[in-house]
């Protein structure tokens, strides 16, 4: 049988400074009927552009060329906009990430389903309402009549994503392209959407999945193509790619995924600063480098929080944090895990003294920290540092790296030559050389920025480090390097770490004890090995169950 999609030597380029910069450099892609193919790569690999070129939407400025480009046996090489339009929605459906912005926020779900199904003109079909209802049911939306009349923002993230999928399959296209369909979602919701896609795939839907996450892909795909810098570096059946990868880059990607198996070991390979050069041809064998051992002093409590309560919107408002207690010993790493809205960030702000708890107390080094005046706290702040999720917005844009890192030394009164020296030291520790001193944060890559944030946090030799989702915006291989740095520095300095994340794999990899939060409450706490191996609470089990695993 003829394949549904057959592409040979696809190149896509964008004009930049007068010349064309290629972003896809000669890839082959074949998709057979009924197959689920996954295109995996990090940002800048060209995977999304490739997917968009399949429906002729890679952008007005893009120059697309191919030796052969056939969809359903028809060559699309000479296609004009009008030809593409006949194909879109009819032969190929397209799902983007985050339906909150990928659906028109100003139109009702019913209108959008009708738009999607009704073809290109202003003329509407009969029976639209019945069709729409059936469509929503088919993607597992309960109570479709109520949802049809609503706007996208009135739906929960999961339902919204389902509605988006419904618009894509409104005209039963032969191929469904899903570009990072679950990236913006919480783990439990992500699982539901993946299950929905798996269900459709089982029902015979041909699927092209675009993702940065090998684990997500491994649940669904029959075949995986690994993309890097516009080329396909490896291609094969999912199982082979996951268990016996041949290319070092694939190996590096797999190794970079934090999980229970990576505990105590480095995620990235050796001293390579950033994955922008070429990967040297190392033998593709699994060599894990162990992390330095940690010294935890159980007798010295750096942080203890008891019965923290914080509600927003007055005494009758909703609880952001509800009776949360925990402690943190010197040198220990404590993870706080929860989905969005669980209150984990509010806990971090209370610990940092940026938000006062309504009741409950925080003690730092045995002394009261909450409910004392800011003037009294000010001199003690140097012992506590924050690493924020979005490093760039945590830097004053007028400051150079040197000034940014140096500012945290204000409170310990370190100025002049001593400051210069310390800044050099910590930048060196995060492997940023002296050439970075005069650079501005906007000129740095995401990984470099996060390293500057880490250097700044360690500079005043704090006793406690609060890290709020420090790696969630990073590509997996960059994330691996940042996590390795954080782990090394934490072990070497004996600093306690409060690590807040939605990612169970990262928490599992990095921390000693873990706190699972849901709706402002702690539902489970204990040693990481214990909690993750035999969770007591049903929510923890559901969370763990939802985490996509490389298998």
């Amino acid at each position, binding site marked *: 049988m003829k394949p549904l999609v057959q592409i040979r030597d696809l190149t896509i380029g964008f004009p930049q400074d007068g010349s064309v910069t290629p972003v896809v450099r000669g890839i082959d892609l074949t998709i057979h009927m009924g197959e689920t193919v996954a295109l995996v790569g990090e940002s800048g690999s060209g995977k999304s552009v490739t997917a*968009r070129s399949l*429906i002729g*939407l890679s952008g007005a400025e893009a120059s697309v060329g191919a030796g052969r480009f056939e969809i359903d046996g028809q060559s699309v090489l000479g296609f004009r*906009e009008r030809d593409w*339009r*006949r*194909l*879109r*929605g*009819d032969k*190929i*459906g*397209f799902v*983007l990430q*985050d339906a909150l*912005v*990928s*659906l*028109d*926020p*100003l*139109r009702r779900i019913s209108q959008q389903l009708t*738009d*999607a199904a009704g*073809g*290109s*003109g*202003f003329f509407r079909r009969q029976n639209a309402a019945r069709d729409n209802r059936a469509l929503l049911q088919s993607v597992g939306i309960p109570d479709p009549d109520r949802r049809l009349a609503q*706007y996208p*923002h*009135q739906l*929960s993230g999961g*339902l919204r994503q389902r509605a*988006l999928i419904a*618009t*894509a399959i*409104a005209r039963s296209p032969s191929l469904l392209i899903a570009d990072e369909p679950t990236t913006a979602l919480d783990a439990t919701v992500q699982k539901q959407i993946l299950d929905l896609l798996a269900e459709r795939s089982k029902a015979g839907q041909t699927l092209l999945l675009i993702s940065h996450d090998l684990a997500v892909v491994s649940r669904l795909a029959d075949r995986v193509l690994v993309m890097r810098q516009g080329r396909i570096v490896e291609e094969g059946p999912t199982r082979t790619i996951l268990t016996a990868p041949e290319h070092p880059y694939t190996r590096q990607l797999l190794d970079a995924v934090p999980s229970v198996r990576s505990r105590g070991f480095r995620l990235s390979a050796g001293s390579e600063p950033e994955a922008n050069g070429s990967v040297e041809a190392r033998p593709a064998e699994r060599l894990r480098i162990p992390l330095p051992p940690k010294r935890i002093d159980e007798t010295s409590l750096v942080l203890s929080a008891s019965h923290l309560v914080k509600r927003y919107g007055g005494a009758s408002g909703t609880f952001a944090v509800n009776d949360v207690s925990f402690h943190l010993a010197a040198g220990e790493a404590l993870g706080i895990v929860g989905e969005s*809205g669980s209150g984990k960030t509010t806990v971090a702000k209370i610990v940092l003294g940026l938000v006062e708890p309504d009741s409950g107390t925080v003690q730092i080094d045995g002394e009261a920290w909450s409910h004392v005046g800011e003037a009294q706290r000010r001199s003690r702040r140097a012992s506590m540092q924050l690493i924020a999720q979005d490093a760039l917005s945590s830097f004053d844009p007028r400051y150079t790296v040197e000034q940014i890192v140096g500012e945290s030394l204000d409170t310990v009164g370190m100025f002049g030559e001593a400051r210069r020296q310390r800044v050099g030291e910590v930048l060196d520790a995060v492997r940023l050389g002296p050439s970075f001193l005069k650079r501005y944060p906007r000129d740095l890559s995401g990984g470099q920025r996060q390293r500057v944030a880490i250097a700044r946090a360690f500079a005043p030799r704090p006793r406690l480090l609060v890290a709020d989702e420090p790696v969630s915006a990073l590509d997996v291989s960059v994330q691996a390097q940042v996590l390795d740095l954080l782990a090394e520095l934490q072990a070497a300095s004996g600093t306690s770490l409060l690590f807040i994340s939605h990612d169970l794999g990262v928490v599992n990899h990095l921390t000693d004890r873990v706190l699972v939060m849901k709706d402002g409450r702690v539902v489970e706490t204990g040693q990481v090995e214990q909690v993750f191996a035999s969770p007591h609470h049903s929510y923890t089990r559901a969370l763990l169950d939802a985490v996509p695993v490389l298998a």
Partner: protein
Amino acid sequence: MDPQNTTAIRRSPAAWLPERLGLKRGGLALQIAARIGSGLLVLWAAVTLSFVSLQLAPGDIVSLLIGEQLRTPEVEATIRAEWGLDAPLPLQYLSYLSRILHGDFGRSYILQTDVTGLVLSQMLPTLKLTAAALVVALVFAVASAVSTAGRRVPRAIAGALELTLVSTPSFWLGILLLFVFSFTLKLFPVSGDRSFSALVLPALALGLSLGAVVGQVLREGLERALEEPFALTVRSWGTSDLVLRLRHCLRHAALPAVTLTGWLVGNLLSGAVITESVFGRPGLGRVTVEAVLGHDLPVVLAVAILSAFVYVALSTLVDVLYLLLDPRLRDESRETGR
């Protein structure tokens, strides 16, 4: 006048009370009521401000009100009686408020006439002019934005045209139009308000530069909407470009443009003053200019309060319209509702 800044600067005077009351949730009716309430409060404050400025202005109040008219004891006595100037200040304020509430703006001692009657009699020609100019502005803005957004060359041409129009003073544009169409081509009358054709040139002079600003904002909004992920989704349904622009993106683009309304109304009213003078049209603008030059304060204050009223009323109306246009504003609290 830069469109981006006007959107940042001009905020509806009706928006603060709902914000203050934390009215992000709550029914549509409640939100609308709160907006009308804050509009009324702003108006009351504007009237108060006009009273305060009369009190604070240098010189005694009688000579302020009397303007360039000859000051005789009889006239002074009438003014004192009419404004209750012998009563204590709070009482004066209350009677001022109540008079304005009753639509009584006092007497012009220069024109020897009732201000309210004068203003009402001159309102119609001004209303005609501003309405026509508004139509010109909106038609120009929508046409130029929809047809050129996201297209490189047409966009550059429209952009240059708009920049020129925005930078051209409306009274000079009026003079040029007069020269070309009235004196040279003799297509339209030079002045007056006797026929529809007399309205064409003034409406163009006043409306085009405003339309250029709105057009810029609209195009920018349209281009932003075309870049949004949802536009990609809509395209992936096989929707045509024109349908995407008209059915989906224009509404998004209208949101920032709507916030311009306050600015637009203010400029229409201000512009009418100048345009009427250029084209020798009767109307409130002419009355205002003569009153300002003749120090006829009762008339000036009446026009100012009237324009503040129009401004606040229209802004409030548009603010309510905004609620209807963007469902996200209506129920932010339900965002996470399952």
